[in-house]
């Protein structure tokens, strides 16, 4: 019998189960795009059939890191840039958990960029939502890795000399098997994409455009947006890697020309998740490792029986 009866529980799940019983006063500003992520996530999880007690949200630092403060599930509010490695291990140790990692553009593409690349490369089976507002919000408006070239801030008084990160292309090249972009102003698309990401077996990256009305007033509110999967002007096959790459590039470039493109850009259902890859080479237990510590009948191996003879 499982020590985790919340995992795999079959029942109707109400959307408000994900709202804390006493709702904390959010630290997000009025009009912040982060509310859009919260709402979309609350909508997606019940539709994907996952309960609060089997869900672990792992966040980094920044306004985005507060996501699990306003969300009723198990949560781990980690440190700047390190949500992904914490999330990876939690998923490996107990694969039955629904793991959602989240952070901002500075958190995920800047300080945590190395982890982003390797998590995508390894194709860990969880969803990663990056709140992309093209600015450092919580520290009051510094230029971030996704700020456009020429962006002026107190730390870049002459305007940024750097091209912004291309998050979608980066995810694709690193190996993510699901890549999407959505926007806070588009709650239905956001909910659907998050649901698909949750159901995808592998690393699902969602670049989530979240307007910052306080520190990034110059930036667009990401309207009007175009859904590239629905709009007839855009024809590409998200299962075709080359076509996806071209679409991503156009999307990344057009953002700073005032055209907000969103949608599901790439999906590879054929690529095994990291957990499956490890299982294939005999490096993953068949039963969740976390269960073993609650199993009174498990016969724990001893070094005296396994190794000591070789030392005689």
């Amino acid at each position, binding site marked *: 019998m499982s*020590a*985790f*009866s*919340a*995992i795999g*529980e079959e029942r109707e799940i109400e959307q408000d189960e994900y709202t*804390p*019983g*006493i*709702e*904390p006063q959010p630290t997000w500003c009025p009009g912040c795009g982060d509310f859009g992520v919260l709402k979309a996530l609350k909508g997606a999880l019940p539709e994907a059939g996952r309960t609060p*007690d*089997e869900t672990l949200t*792992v966040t980094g*630092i920044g306004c985005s890191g*507060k996501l699990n*403060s306003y969300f*009723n*599930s*198990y*949560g*781990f*509010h*980690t*440190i700047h840039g*390190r949500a*992904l*490695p*914490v999330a*990876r*291990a*939690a998923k*490996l*140790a*107990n694969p039955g*958990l629904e793991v959602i990692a989240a952070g901002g553009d500075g958190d995920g593409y800047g300080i945590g960029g*190395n*982890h982003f*690349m*390797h998590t995508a490369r390894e194709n860990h089976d969880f969803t990663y939502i990056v709140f992309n507002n093209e600015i450092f919000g919580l520290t009051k408006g510094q230029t971030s890795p996704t700020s456009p070239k020429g962006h002026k801030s107190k730390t870049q008084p002459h305007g940024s000399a750097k091209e912004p990160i291309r998050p979608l292309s980066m995810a694709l090249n690193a190996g993510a098997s699901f890549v999407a972009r959505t926007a806070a102003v588009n709650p239905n698309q956001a909910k659907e994409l998050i649901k698909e990401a949750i159901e995808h077996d592998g690393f699902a990256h969602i670049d989530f455009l979240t307007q910052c009305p306080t520190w990034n007033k110059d930036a667009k509110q990401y309207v009007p947006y175009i859904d590239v999967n629905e709009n007839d002007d855009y024809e590409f096959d998200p299962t075709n890697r080359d076509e996806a790459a071209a679409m991503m590039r156009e999307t990344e470039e057009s953002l700073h020309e005032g055209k907000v493109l969103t949608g599901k850009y790439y999906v590879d259902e054929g690529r095994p998740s990291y957990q499956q890859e*490890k299982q294939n080479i*005999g*490096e*993953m*237990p068949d*039963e969740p*490792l*976390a269960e*073993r*510590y*609650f199993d009174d009948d*498990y016969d*724990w191996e*001893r070094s*005296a029986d*396994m*190794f*000591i003879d070789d*030392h*005689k």
Partner: protein
Amino acid sequence: MTDDELIWRIAGGSGDGIASTSQNFAKALMRSGLDVFTHRHYPSRIRGGHTYTEVRAAPDGVTSRGDGYDFLLALGDSFARNPQEEAYYGTEEIKPLSENLDDLREGGVIVYDSGLIDADEVPNFDQRVEENDWHVFPLDLRGLAREKGREVMRNTAGVGATCAIADIPVEAIEELMTDAMPEKILEPNLEILNEAYDAVLEDYDLSGVEVSCPEGEHEEEQVLVNGSEGIAYGAFDEGCRFIAGYPMTPWTEVFTIMSKVLPDVGGISEQVEDEIAAASLAIGAAHTGVKAMSGSSGGGFALMSEPLGLAEMSETPIVLLEAARAGPSTGMPTKPEQADLEHVLYTSQGDSNRVVFAPADPAEAYDHARRAFQIAYEYQIPTIILYDQKLSGEYRNVPASHFDREPNPDIGQTLTEDQIAEAPHEPGGKFQRFRHEPEDGVSPRSVPGQKGGRFLASGNEHNEAGHISEDPDNRVAQVDRRSRKLESIREELNEDGLNVNYGPEDADYGVLAFGSMVGTVEEAVDRLNDDGESVKALAVGELAPFPEGEVREFIESVDRVMVVEMNASAQFRGLTQKQLGEYGPKLSSLLKYNGNPFEPGEIVEGFHNTVDGEETTDHQTTFVPAAGD
């Protein structure tokens, strides 16, 4: 030269199989009933470069390398040659002979491979041989190996010659080779071993050679184990089934052992992109209830600083290893030093909440690893094992029964779902994972996936359900509770005996040491007492929380104390003074930071310095007098 011990040094190129040959040799002597100790010296290169391993063997108790040694097997450095140009890099190829002469004792034995080494190229060789009364055996080991098998088997030929000269029964080596070698290479090796053995007996008159191997007998069966193996097996027996890491010398040795064994028992090993990720993965796994570890050496451990703080603040139980090496920065990657003590104690922002152990030998490495896991999970706190390059690869014999213990997979105060249902929740529904009131500081936890156990873990200061809080009263309550854990741990550890007193209880003088230097200090204490001095030692195995009572009692019980450590800034003496708030005028320091561990004789000399005010003649160590002296 003494009758009751043999110190045999095998020297050659890095990559020439020096490590495995010396290990087999040590094991053979252990099986014959002797106590053994190995000391290795190697450069940070894949192949080539000067490397040696010493095997010291005696009938009762060897805890250290010796002062010098008495038998050199110089194999020649097969990687010193540039194959393209048939050229030598300077005199690299003769270094296994030339570089090892300074430490060879008078009357010692030299066996060198005349097939690879031309002794004429060693400056003043004949003169030095005569002056020191060395017995020299130039043997074409390479030629013999080529003739009967393959060139790499010249190590075996050298061991055969060693047996003949040092009066070691060749059967002991035969038996070990039969156990250790695959059949294909066993036959030629056995032939080469015996051929070399017979050749020496036939060709040389050994009557003048006084170097010989003693005989001994063990009361119970022994195993040959090094520090890294001790740590790994201790972790294994505590139910550790998750490790994450990034390669770095010398921590890699434990990581390698765990990565090999864990998949066989349904455990998980993850080699990841950097040490920040490694420590973070350990936290992620431990958060779900799994027993997890990570580790690194100096620079890699520096990257773990921030996750270490996260484990402290979120009260996630993890065990980290710090296999120190000479620093700062890349320093000397394959050389031991104890200069990471302050780094391990204080790194990461804020008031630290951690437990630090420092084992002294392979048996203690096992014990401390077990204790580190027990404390981490019982008290929901990161624990660190600080060791170093010396202990990492140092082999000693340990009674096999030492490892014959029950496993302990217990993960501490983690509630079941039934218990969670009864436990306090905040009005909003979240489980109160971080309650203020527990006396011992430990607030029981739930793990994700358990029904009703939802809470927020956070690196931010937080309230009882884990939500970010900057309320002053809550802040004080949470800081105080986390501090109470350290008090509880101190009380529990006081019963443990991980700090070891050595020597006569009523001695006049004291030596204080921690970690891998302890065995050498013990030998120095023995020698000093044999010479009529009155000395004892305290080996501190728990560095944080500091065992104030025990250390104070020790210092109070003697006239003066010399603190022995492998670093330049006297960190352990500084820690002792800081923790006890006094004793500046009572504590002197003996320091060494040249990349080589202390020899017992250096500590003996340092003692005379502290007690008798004798000037030191050894410029490899530094004596720092007590304040006011």
